[in-house]
């Protein structure tokens, strides 16, 4: 048995003459999908596997397929003769361009065997001279194939071909088997004393954690600081005992080269290490040198969810191996430019990072560690008098200790990296998208995303404020009762059937849906949302409510919610509510749409009635037309009353009221939105402020018919007095197949929606289709909750935005607007 081991992610190049048994070998050892054969590609582009004229295009195709597979991280085997140097070079280059290793397996069979095998195959009509030529190429190749650039060349002859077994080598960077918990520790730079303090703070006792935590060092253990050897001693000890991992920093690389006697420029604190090593014995220097030399570029940990690299690593490089991956991991994404202090300008790769894995790194000293798109830099410049910082994983908790003194003067002043203007990428929102939510995946269609992009870009408030958009809400199944399209009975029945025991009926305010995002102070707004100001109020499509009055209104709201900020002890709040009166925002709409209809009706109908009465007076039979027209006249008057009820005088911000009914999110770790409605309503009821309108509500035990009847009477009373209706919600979240709320609108209010005379044609209108609206309501609700939980978890802007944008995209789906 001959064991051949290849890297688990690699390009395996088979080498051998036609008839050497490559395809048989490949079929025996690899999955059919892993093997890309030149014959097969030739067949694809020519309908004939032996059409040699198609060879160049067949190889184009082969390279394309191999490239796609490698990009996607799949082991790939190339089944082609590859007896020529040029053919192998192009495959090696392809592997390199995808940062994967490349092995060759040579099947070296005697010429006569190959000729004999080909003779058996009727489709291979080329002569023995072809084999002979390939054989010559191979013989020439074999003497120098080891210099081709393969990681390893496995040559198999005779029985070895038959007896070979393939083994897979895990990549050095692959420690996905380790699940932690970890303590990732930033750049130490010889600050031995601070390191000991930090380790103690983290709970390590002489390098061992009682709860089996593992320390992970991001590199740059050495240089600049007072005692690099002591730091190395500590870290080496921990690594050897298996209580720590360490990736290489650029300073380790340079120190090794200096210790190896290579000519390097002694600067940036290397001089300190060299002085300190001069005092150490040779055995220690040997050990440290071997240790540092053996450090690898990065680790993938915890099933790939955590990546640690000294200078960070973009997603395409995770788990890959190449010179440029190592260079990225050690030095970052440098552009080759230098800044005014002579230090390299680094490309802000983290801004563009969209990977799922958390990337923890160091290298660039900043005043404090900040999250950028699921990445964090832990170099807080301890050696420059800053702090030594660690990140507890998976807790995402920052632990840091201050420097005991400034050990080394920085070349450029330490700055906060400053919050980058949280830039969103077009790739975050466009195309057909599948958005993961805690209750399943929601598909967003490209055409809806297209429409939403325009609305979002042109009209919406700043995406940093736009942390939520309210979902649409479905009405109940259509009522068969006389004079009703909607009635509480159907809402109660639906929830009861879904197993809900208790619901709350909330008064539905007739205003404009409004989401308020508020911060206790501008500083806290900046810290949480990365934007200046005290908050914002926006509509259900994300538009700002007011022009110039917006700020004034936000300040007033912020003040009104003082008690809530105090009770919840939160620096920020997101609230769902209704802005009253309706005319404040919808004034133009009311005038151009509703009042116009009312004006036309009130001018035309009395004249029509009078004309009909005159005709009737002449003895003409206009009875039924007259009746109808009189009814229409009365209906039009009711219609006018229905909209006029929701119009009120507003000047400046006086006259405005905000009626909150849900606390969407606050800084409490979990998402407030999923709490039960009594929690929301109790907290909100406690706010006594003239700007805040209360939301009247009543609870219903669905098993109790009396309570149902009482709630129905309550609804009848509300709507008879001009109320829009009510929203029925399960008091506690009821699962992802149950509507989060059902609106039951009053018969008079529905005149605004279905027209003044709608009660005349109820039977027609009862044929309404709720399916799409209900499905939308559920999907939008999941996305809304998802956006809020991403916000609460401190996820990056683009993650929150993805979910919010998706709500807007779904709202672009055509659906009966009367529902």
């Amino acid at each position: 048995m001959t064991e051949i081991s290849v890297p688990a992610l690699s390009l395996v190049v088979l080498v051998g003459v036609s008839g050497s048994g490559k395809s048989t070998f490949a079929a025996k050892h690899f999955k059919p999908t892993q093997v890309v054969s030149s014959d097969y590609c030739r067949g694809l582009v020519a309908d004939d596997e032996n059409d040699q004229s198609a060879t160049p295009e067949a190889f184009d195709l082969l390279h394309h397929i191999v490239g796609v597979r490698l990009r996607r991280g799949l082991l790939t085997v190339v089944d082609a003769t590859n007896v020529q140097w040029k053919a192998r070079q192009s495959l090696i280059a392809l592997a390199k361009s995808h940062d994967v290793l490349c092995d060759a397996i040579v099947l070296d069979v005697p010429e006569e065997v190959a000729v004999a095998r080909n003779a058996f195959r009727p489709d291979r009509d080329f002569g023995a001279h072809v084999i002979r030529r390939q054989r010559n190429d191979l013989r020439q190749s074999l003497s120098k194939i080891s210099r081709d650039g393969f990681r390893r060349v496995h040559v198999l002859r005779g029985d070895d071909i038959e007896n070979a077994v393939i083994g897979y080598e895990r990549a050095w960077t692959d420690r996905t088997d380790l699940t932690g918990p970890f303590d990732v520790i930033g750049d130490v730079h010889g600050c031995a004393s601070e390191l000991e303090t930090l380790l103690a703070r983290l709970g390590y006792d002489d390098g061992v954690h009682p709860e089996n935590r593992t320390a992970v060092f991001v590199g740059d253990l050495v240089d600049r600081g007072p005692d690099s050897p002591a730091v190395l001693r500590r870290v080496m000890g921990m690594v050897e005992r298996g209580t720590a991992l360490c990736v290489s920093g650029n300073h380790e690389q340079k120190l090794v080269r200096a210790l190896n006697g290579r000519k390097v420029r002694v600067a940036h604190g290397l001089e300190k290490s060299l002085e300190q090593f001069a005092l150490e014995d040779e055995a220690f220097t040997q050990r440290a040198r071997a240790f540092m030399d053996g450090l690898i570029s990065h680790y993938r940990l915890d099933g790939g969810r955590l990546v640690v690299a000294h200078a960070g690593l973009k997603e395409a490089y995770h788990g890959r191996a190449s010179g440029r991956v190592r260079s990225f991991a050690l030095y970052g994404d440098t552009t080759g430019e230098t800044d005014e202090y002579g230090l390299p300008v680094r490309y802000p790769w983290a801004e563009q990072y969209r990977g799922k894995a958390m990337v923890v790194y160091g290298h660039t000293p900043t005043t404090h560690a900040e999250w950028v798109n699921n990445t964090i830099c832990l170099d807080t410049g301890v050696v420059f008098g800053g702090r030594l910082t660690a990140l507890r994983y998976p807790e995402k908790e920052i632990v840091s200790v201050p420097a005991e003194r400034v050990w080394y003067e920085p070349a450029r002043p330490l700055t906060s990296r400053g919050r980058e203007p949280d830039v969103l990428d077009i790739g975050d929102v466009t195309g057909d998208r599948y958005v993961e939510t805690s209750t399943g995946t929601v598909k967003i269609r490209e055409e809806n995303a297209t429409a939403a992009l325009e609305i979002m870009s042109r009209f919406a408030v700043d995406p940093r404020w736009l942390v939520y958009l309210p979902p649409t809400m479905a009405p109940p199944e259509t009522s068969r009762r006389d004079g009703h399209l909607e009635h509480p009975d159907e809402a109660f029945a639906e929830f009861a059937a879904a197993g809900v025991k208790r619901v709350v009926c909330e008064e539905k305010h007739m205003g404009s849906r409004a989401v308020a995002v508020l911060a206790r102070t501008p500083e806290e707004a900046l810290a949480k949302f990365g934007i200046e100001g005290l908050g914002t109020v926006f509509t259900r499509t994300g538009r700002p409510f007011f022009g110039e009055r917006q700020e004034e209104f936000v300040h007033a709201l912020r003040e009104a919610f003082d008690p809530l900020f105090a009770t919840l002890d939160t620096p920020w709040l997101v609230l769902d509510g209704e802005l009253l009166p309706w005319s404040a925002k919808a004034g133009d709409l009311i005038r151009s749409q509703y009042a116009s209809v009312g004006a036309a009706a009130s001018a035309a109908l009395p004249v029509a009635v009078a004309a009909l009465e005159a005709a009737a007076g002449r003895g003409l039979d206009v009875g039924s037309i007259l009746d109808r027209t009189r009814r229409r006249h009365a209906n039009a008057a009711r219609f006018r009353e229905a909209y006029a009820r929701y119009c009120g005088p507003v000047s400046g911000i006086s006259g405005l009221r905000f009626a909150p009914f849900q606390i969407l999110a606050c800084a409490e770790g979990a998402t407030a939105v999923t709490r039960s409605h009594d929690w929301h309503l109790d907290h909100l009821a406690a706010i006594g402020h003239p700007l805040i309108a209360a939301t009247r509500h009543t609870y219903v035990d669905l098993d109790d018919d009396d309570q149902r009847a009482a709630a129905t009477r309550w609804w009848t009373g509300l709507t008879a007095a001009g109320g829009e209706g009510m929203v029925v919600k399960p008091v506690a979240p009821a699962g992802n197949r149950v509507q989060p709320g059902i609106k039951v609108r009053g018969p008079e209010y529905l005149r605004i929606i279905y027209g003044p005379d709608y009660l005349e044609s109820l039977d027609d209108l009862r044929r309404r289709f709720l399916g799409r609206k209900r499905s939308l309501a559920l999907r939008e609700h999941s996305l809304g909750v998802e956006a809020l939980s991403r916000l609460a978890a401190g996820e990056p802007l683009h993650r929150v935005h993805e979910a919010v944008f998706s709500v807007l995209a779904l709202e672009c789906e055509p659906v009966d607007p009367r529902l």
Partner: protein
Amino acid sequence: MLLTISTTRAPATDLGFLLHKHPGRVQEFPRAFGVAHVFYPEATDERCTAALLLEVDAVRLARTRGKATPEFSLGQYVNDRPYAASSLLSTAMADVFRTARSGRCNARPELAETAIPLEITLPALPCRGGPGLARRLFEPMGWDVTAEPIPLDPAFPEWGESRYVTLTLKGEQRLADALNHLYVLLPVLDDAKHYWIAEDEVDKLIRAGEGWLAAHPDLTLITKRFLNRRTALTRAAFARLAEVGDDDEETLEPPAEEEVRVPLNTLRRDAVTAAVGELGARTVIDLGCGSGQLILALLDEGVQKITGVDVSAHTLMIAARRLKLDRMGSRTRERVELFQGSVTYTDARFAGYDAAVLMEVVEHLDPPRLPAMERVVFGTAQPRHVLVTTPNAEYNPRYENLTGLRHPDHRFEWTRAEFRAWADGVAGRYGYDVEFRPVGDDDPEVGPPTQMAVFTKETQA
């Protein structure tokens, strides 16, 4: 929904003959969207009144509308059609009184040819342009017009007037003429039609307008509105009316609304095109390309590759149509690319151009979004040159009648100093040099109407 026609010419009941509807009966005519009734509230020798009452079935009307009903889609269900004298009423009138409208009356042929005293009332006539327009349109034919505006809602006097008037027309007219006046002018005043305007609409207009329309001083407005502003049809109508009225076609051309001066957008386009040429940019990305006017100019200028980006997919469709992309020769076609994108989202497709143009774009962004745009354009796409044009707010007082900003969607308009401060800041942050140029007439006091900044990336030391 209601139209009454009265006459006092004795015997007034002869109106029944003219209308071909008996004063003693109540007649019903089914319509696509409801039922039309004709009855006579009064019928004496002294005075006879015919009423046309159209009952609109709103539900049926809504069902027949396609998904394309724009803006406020609830308007499909809640609208004034059941009450107002719209095109629904005018077409019902045209059909129900078809014979009368043609002027035929076998029973009273000479009466049909005679101008008789008529009074026509429409209690709720939608009138875009106000009572004044109603007078302007009916008076030339000799009508005595009363147009009473209807308030939007008496309970909210601050809302003012609605777009409806109660219209009363009095005059001596042939009945057929009167009906044709109504048939043409009701939808013109409403400025909306409930049906798709097809080619034969021109024929209808010509027929109904015979004898009065060609000479009407508001011919242009009437033709445009009647044909729902469909330009091609309007032109066809003008041409034919010219024959009918024996008039010179040229005088029928709509009066020039634009000033004779080169419009500012042309100046702007020329200035940008010239700057692109001067900079030697061979590849240009036009961020916020709109309907593609600059793209066309740059193609002519010989720029090798021009990419147009707009945030509106609809606008891009218009641009593709204007540029005739599908009919372009393949060599030219290869030089043009259009795609949807947003300047506040980084986009790999924005990279790799010699120059990016932001022509009248920045002022459409809320000021807090500017840093994101700067990041996207100057920080990520990093073209060698960036050309930005924006209005100069100082110039605004030079526009008569301009109050506020030049466009309702402008979020701000900068003075020259504000523009410079912004541009210098961006240049400093992203390593660009910047120079400024006037676009349009550079007024010594307030500067040019448009200002342009040309950014050039500093070459690396």
